[in-house]
């Protein structure tokens, strides 16, 4: 039973990596786990989701009404991207980069659209990772 879930967890991680949800940074994080912090990755992911929520909220607010401060949007997205990349959220990161490109192009519609995708990836990864951690435990 336990063996099976472990195998499932490993399988899920494999697919998350294969599908591009995660990148090798996630593996590096797992490698950091030791006796002192056996659930380090989970801890970090939780931290990421609690902390990055404010980025998402702020960006959402900034996208609502004009005038649009693209520099600020870009900056916020930069922070969010940095945070996302630190846990290895590859897809989120990629979407963030695209958002920044729209920012540079001062394309507010593009920003809005891509931000929906960012949020979607962000949420999808959250559920996937939650499942993963549950399996692993």
């Amino acid at each position, binding site marked *: 039973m336990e063996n099976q879930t472990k195998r499932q967890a490993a399988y899920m991680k494999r697919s998350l990596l294969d599908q591009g949800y995660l990148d090798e*940074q996630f593996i*590096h*994080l797992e*490698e*950091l786990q*030791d006796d*002192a*912090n056996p659930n*380090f990755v989970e*801890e*970090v992911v939780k*931290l*990421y989701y609690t*902390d*990055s929520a404010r980025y998402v909220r702020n960006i959402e607010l900034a996208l609502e009404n004009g005038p649009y401060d693209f520099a600020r949007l870009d*900056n916020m997205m*930069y*922070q969010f*991207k*940095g*945070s996302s*990349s*630190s*846990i*290895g959220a590859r897809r989120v990161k990629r979407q963030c980069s695209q958002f920044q490109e729209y920012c540079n192009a001062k394309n507010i519609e593009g920003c809005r659209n891509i931000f929906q995708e960012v949020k979607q990836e962000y949420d999808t990864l959250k559920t996937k990772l939650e499942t993963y951690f549950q399996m692993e435990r």
Partner: protein
Amino acid sequence: MYQLRYVLLTFKILLFLFLGIFFFNIFYFYVNLLKKFQKFEESMNLGVGSVVKTMSGASCSVSWKSGGSDKVPDQFPAGLRVLVVDDDPTCLRILEKMLRNCHYEVTKSNRAELALSMLRENRNGFDIVISDVHMPDMDGFKLLEHVGLEMDLPVIMMSADDSKDVVMKGVTHGACDYLIKPVRIEALKNIWQHVIRKKKHEWKDKDFDQSTSVEDGDQQQKPPEDVDYSSSANEGNWKSSKRRKEEEDETEERDDLSTSKKPRVVWSVELHQQFVQAVNQLGIDKAVPKKILELMNVPGLTRENVASHLQKYRLYLRRLSGVSQHQNGLNNSFMGHPEATYGTMTSFNGLELQALAATGQLPAQSLATLQAAALGRSATKSAISMPLVDQRNLFSFENPKLRFSEGQQQLNNSNKQINLLHGIPTTMEPKQLADLHQSSQPFVAMNMQGHARMQQNNALLMHMSQQQQSSRAQMLNETNNGQVSLPPLSMSQPAAVLSRNNIVDNVRGPVYNSVPQTSSMVDFSLNQTTELQNNSFPLVSSNSGMSTLTSKRLLQEEVNSDIKGSRGFPPGYDIFEELHQQKTQDWGLPNVGSTFGTSDHSNMPGTLDVSPSMLVQQGISSMKKNGQNGNSLMGGPQLNLFSGGNLLTVKSEQLPDTSYQNTFFPEQFGQDDLMSALLKQHFMNFQQQESVGQVETEFGFDGYSPLDNLPV
């Protein structure tokens, strides 16, 4: 006539007595200062050791904090104290975990301002700083700038932004590394190397430090604590600040370190920006503390605060310029360097420093494998026990440095020199002259050592006059004009006061006075002294020429080029800066040249403006040079340390000299009558030994003409 002579004689004796006492006092003053600082430093070290941050959940806390342990713990680099600054909690947590897995001791800060205040409060609490670039409260580069300015810790920048210009910005701001996010643990495993690298720089300093203090005679310092990694950068920094204290007056940085009572000025970002604005407005090379202060118009800020900050800022700029070689504009800051110091210094210090800086060149010179024989010769000139001791001290000073220069030859050389000292008779003047003539190096060495001995002086005199002659022949009218225009009388009395050069001059003055035994001797001596002064400069510079080119030229040529060099200040500086910019390990050789060059320049104003104000001017210029020397050699805050070391060395050297003069001078005066004969003899000898015809004639002319001129 005789009465006048006796009056002069007694006056001179008194003068030298006074000088001797004066220098003795100063010597002890500095020795005491040094002792005090050492004590204080020890207490500081203890304090550092006790300020140990215990981090929650630290997997390991094997620390190699300073405390006082002198060797590298086996588990190095475990316990490296890292301050991580990142506004993103996720990144911060990951970094913390990674660093802990590397067995470092981690302190986190999610705000740059907080990190900065932590660093300010506990200067010796960290070995390295890792900072994010993008932070809302303070730009990472700003933090980097402040850390560079204030504590000189290695700083690693990190950012998800891997664009070239951002990385370049990190480099130009003095970051020792730039990590791209997400940071890998492999990259963090290696960060200790930056601490070591920084530390290595300071070892050199410390070495200076120790060697000088050993030379100081009274106190032996403990052997180099090379491997005291923990307090590494900080300790060196602290030491340097300690030294700085001797040179400049109180500054803000020291306030929190030492016992001074002045309120500490915290250079906030805004304040610093105001400062930078003011500096930019004035131009970096023209910015002096007073004007900056006026421009900034901040109540409560003192000129000293600004001065010290300006100094740090310049150091910081220079560090940048060392990294990015294209920033020529920054170099100007070197030229203006003295402002930071001279304001609070006494003119005496200035003069001292000048001499010091000169001595400071010695080790560098030896490093550059200039003929050590020069030293030996100079020592032989002062074939008296006291100077001999000095000489040895000098060597002991050098030896520790050899480790860095990895030169065994120099060791041998120094040994040889010592032998030389023993083997060479005291009456060396003619040969010395020849030596001097062949290459001015020994002369310079002698100058540095400040063995202002009578005979030597005679030799010098002749050499000088001869040189002058040659320079005249070389149509160096400018310098001649300078010499001629010297107000004769002003010469001797201010010179009597302080600088070693001046001492030499004084000694010479008397010599000549006694020789002619006529009423007009005053004029004569004055002329001589002025000549000497002027000459002393070209000689030094010629040395630099020698050291850099390592080619023997004709004396005249040397003089020529040297004087030119002295006239053209900017070129000299440019050279210097270029050298400095290279920032390579082989700074030994080029820097010798360059530093000499600068010292010459600083000498110049002093020599040309021979007037009471000369003292002050010399002081300033010498300080300038001092700072530059430090810069060139150390390239960091160590500058002060270095010059401080110089300070000590000269003191120890000067003392014997002056005392010697006190004791022996009268006797020599007793032989005054013989002096003229002696002089003549020397001249003759010199002539005989000289193989260069050109010089010979000149010399002859010069040597005899003064005697002829005597209105007997």
